[in-house]
């Protein structure tokens, strides 16, 4: 009903251009035939082909996906437990410390988290001989620790918005508290848990700094591999890889957006 001022409209246009022009330019250059990323050498899809023949990339991708899936699952379980604790269990001893610890990873810079975890792993290796090697397990632990904070935030807001009388009804009908959590609470917060899992998965797949700290020699995640390549400058196969990333994310998000819109229209 209200018209937007011309100033707002132009800033909106500028802002979205600012956000998307870099992404578009990467996509355009991914079809550049030239090995020199900066010179246009005609249209080609050869870099996409090369991507799938590059074993290092495939290995790194596989490792990244394994870590992301494991840590996202753990983070969802722990994060949900943490959210349940904070919302439903009222005051308990050490609550302040706990809620501080669960939110801190959201704001503490990655370099600090990464460094502290690495020093921790080195120290306990000295004491207990574990972990003998840093790689899949240490990265998974690190990712679980910081992504459970995100899951907890998402599930927590869903839990607080939930009508608590639903749980009370179940108890009134003879359901014991532990059962209530499985019968009533979990099904209702399931969408938040799914969203949390997806976010945790993406965060893990995305992370470079923490993984660089806590991984050992030989264990390269996808971001670490990309970083080692792009340190030296723009390369055409990373352009292709980035374009694939953008494509997958865009298609997934738009599909999800479209589906929720459809559902809202129906109801």
């Amino acid at each position, binding site marked *: 009903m*209200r018209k*937007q001022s011309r100033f*707002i409209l132009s*800033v*909106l246009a500028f*802002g*979205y251009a*600012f*956000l*998307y022009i*870099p*992404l578009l*330019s*990467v996509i355009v*250059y991914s079809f550049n035939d030239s090995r020199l990323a*900066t010179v246009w050498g005609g249209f080609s899809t050869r870099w996409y082909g090369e991507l799938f023949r590059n074993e290092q990339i495939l290995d790194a991708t596989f490792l990244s996906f394994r870590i992301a899936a494991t840590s996202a699952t753990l983070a969802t379980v*722990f994060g949900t*437990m*943490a959210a349940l*604790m904070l919302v439903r*269990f009222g005051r308990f001893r050490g609550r302040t410390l*706990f809620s501080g*610890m*669960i*939110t*801190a990873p959201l*704001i*503490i*810079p*990655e*370099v*600090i988290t990464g*460094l*502290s*975890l690495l*020093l*921790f792993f080195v120290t306990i290796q*000295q004491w207990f001989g574990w972990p003998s090697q840093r790689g899949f397990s240490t990265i998974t632990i*690190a990712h679980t*620790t910081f992504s*459970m904070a995100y899951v907890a935030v998402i599930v927590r807001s869903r839990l607080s918005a939930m009508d608590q009388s639903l749980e009370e009804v179940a108890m009134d009908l003879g359901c*014991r508290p*532990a059962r209530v*959590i499985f019968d009533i609470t979990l099904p209702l917060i399931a969408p938040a848990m799914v969203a949390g899992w997806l976010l945790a998965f993406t965060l893990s797949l*995305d992370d470079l700094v923490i993984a660089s700290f806590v991984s050992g020699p030989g264990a390269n995640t996808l*971001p670490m591999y*990309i*970083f080692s390549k*792009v*340190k030296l*400058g*723009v390369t055409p196969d*990373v*352009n292709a890889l980035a374009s694939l*990333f*953008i494509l997958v*994310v865009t298609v997934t*998000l*738009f599909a999800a*957006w479209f589906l929720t819109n459809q559902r809202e229209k129906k109801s």
Partner: protein
Amino acid sequence: MASLIQKDRLWWHITVLVPYLWLLLFFLLPFGIILKISLAEPILAQPPFSPTFDDTGTLSITADNFAFLFSDKLYALTYLKSVIMAAAATICCLLLGFPIAYGIARSQPRTRSLLLLLIVLPFWISFLLRVYAWMGLLGNYGVINNFLMWLGITEQPMQILYTDFAIFLGLTYSYLPFMILPLYATLERMDLDLVDAAMDLGASRTTAFWDITWPLARAGVIAGCMLVFIPAMGEYVIPFLLGGPDALLIGRVLFDEFYVNRDWPLASAVAIMLLLLLVVPIVILQKNQARDAEQAT
């Protein structure tokens, strides 16, 4: 019946204990270790720092690392530069993000959800790849320079990549969504009648903005600024990829100190100092969120 209750209690304890222990072990304890190592001396050994208790069992700690950080001008300059860079990016994000958030909050519901989606979308695309995208834009023969030369504005390519300006651009670009989302949240739930009421009472559109919209968006402004400033302070990837070799920001210095100089105690001390520097903004952020949550109920 008694066993059932015991079973319930067991579940309760598991739910409480598992995440609690996990965080104690993998979050709090590592911080203790950083603190411990920052008080040790670097030695040539594996691991390269002196033990907290020496052979005779007496406590052996030193504040040398922190003293060094304060005595060496390089570190003071690094911290200062990080603060300035992060602050500049924060201000730029605010100037750009506020009108964008405002525009989204005041648009039709259908367009609004699409506009929001387009703000959130970059979040899900790899951070590293988004920073990388700027390398292609800013390089000497990148898109921008090619475009400028094609227009005839410059003959020679301008040096944009590997400068502080490129870091600033990268920070603004990467953290802009962190500014827009909290601002959008406060602006969206603001009662538009308030602005109308102010105008009805004689305030012009601009006056009404400064009297009503701006103060009521305060919680969002604070949250947005902190969410940009805090991670920008510790940023490592952006100064490394977009900045020049002398672009010394804390995140990078910490990394170099650790991997290049292998001075673990000093790296730990740098991390502790960074954390101390961030305590103020973090406390501001927490207080702001708590007050905001209180007002929302």
